[in-house]
């Protein structure tokens, strides 16, 4: 066995799916704790108060932030590791599980917006403009999902704590009903997340003069860069939707399997490049 195989063999052995699920449990519980002191009427003030005034508030916000990030990160690795096995899923089961990925991203994104700090507020406004740019339905969809400029964080909050969670549960229910994770078998992993959150503060960017470059969440950076050159509907809807569609059709039996795989790799490669440009070229 070569060294590369050894590393891959080691990666495959890790229970990524269970780690992802444990991270989801922590994210949900810490989300309830953080929500006790969060107010969508005063998003920035209440988030700052959680960080500064509430006992252990900064820890619980960090825990919610990082466990949610880990949840997505491990879910993606889990999909890559079990890709071969996922091919045996029925069409609808497969489609639902793929759709959980954008659903988790929307949950992460709305959480990011809810901080109401300089970058969170800007990300909310950008999302509002992107959704509003959808022909015919845009204004209604924005009114339903974001409407940050009209109603502040109320709708984003509503969907973060209820609608998108229900949607995720609906999409993933069949899967998480069958595959469970026993917390008692992952105490070390839980301890690692708790320790990580204790030492790593969740990001917060207060609005201040003299800041001329702000960046969105890491998964939004490539999109932020694209929006610089292309209209919002193309950059914010068509481009991400193309990746999701490609993932939906990535089945080994599909006659366009190889072209779809090349498209996905190309898409991810270009997106990574754009992310690096957004990080280093304008700051």
């Amino acid at each position, binding site marked *: 066995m070569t060294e590369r195989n050894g590393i891959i063999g080691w990666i495959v052995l890790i229970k990524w799916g269970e780690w992802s699920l444990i991270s989801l449990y922590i994210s949900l519980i810490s989300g309830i704790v953080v929500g006790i002191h969060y107010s969508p009427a005063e998003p920035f003030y209440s988030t700052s108060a959680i960080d500064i005034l509430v006992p252990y508030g900064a820890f619980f916000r960090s825990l919610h932030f990082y466990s949610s990030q880990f949840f997505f990160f491990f879910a993606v690795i889990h999909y890559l590791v079990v890709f071969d096995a996922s091919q045996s899923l029925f069409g609808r089961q497969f489609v639902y599980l793929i759709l959980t990925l954008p659903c988790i991203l929307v949950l992460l994104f709305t959480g990011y917006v809810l901080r109401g700090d300089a970058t969170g507020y*800007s990300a909310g406004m*950008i999302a509002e403009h992107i959704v509003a740019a959808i022909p015919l339905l845009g204004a*209604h969809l924005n009114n339903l999902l974001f409407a940050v*400029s009209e109603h502040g964080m109320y709708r984003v909050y509503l969907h973060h704590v209820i609608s998108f969670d229900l949607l995720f549960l609906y999409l993933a229910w069949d899967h998480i009903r069958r595959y469970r994770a026993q917390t008692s078998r992952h105490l070390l992993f839980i301890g690692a997340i708790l320790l990580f959150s204790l030492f790593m503060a969740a990001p917060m960017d207060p609005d201040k003069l*003299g800041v*001329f470059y702000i960046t969105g969440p890491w998964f939004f950076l490539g999109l932020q860069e694209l929006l*610089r050159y292309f209209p919002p509907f193309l950059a914010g809807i068509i481009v991400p939707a193309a990746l999701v569609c490609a993932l939906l059709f990535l089945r080994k039996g599909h006659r366009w399997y190889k072209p779809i795989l090349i498209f996905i790799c190309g898409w991810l490669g270009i997106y990574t490049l754009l992310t690096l440009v957004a990080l280093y070229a304008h700051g």
Partner: protein
Amino acid sequence: MRNNSNTNKPVSSGRRVLLAAAGLLFLWPVIRFIGFKVPRKPRIVEVTGTFQNDQFIAKDDFLVFTDQSDTWAVSRTCTHLGCKLNFKEKEGYIECPCHQSKFSTHGEVLHGPAKKRLPRYPVEKTEGSDTYLITIP
């Protein structure tokens, strides 16, 4: 016993079309009513303070500028995607932190991706004080 034979008669196709058209005619005002956004009541914001470097005052929703002859305010919301703008004092222009659109202090677009100019708000100085009233439509 009442004769109900009239109620069981099939509706003619012409009548059906007429009913559908009437339904559609009624639907239009309903859609227009639901979709209408009542314009916000104009807000009058009182600004008291000194201009930073004799140039500007930054507030949450707008920037107030002054020179020897005039005082004016422009929106702080970027017309590209709605990010909050900042004023670059040294360079003398307003810049968006998200995609670096640039605007003059009067709100004209100097550099894209923004295409529309910034809305300008009326400013009134109250007599005998350093207070300005800015009307945001």
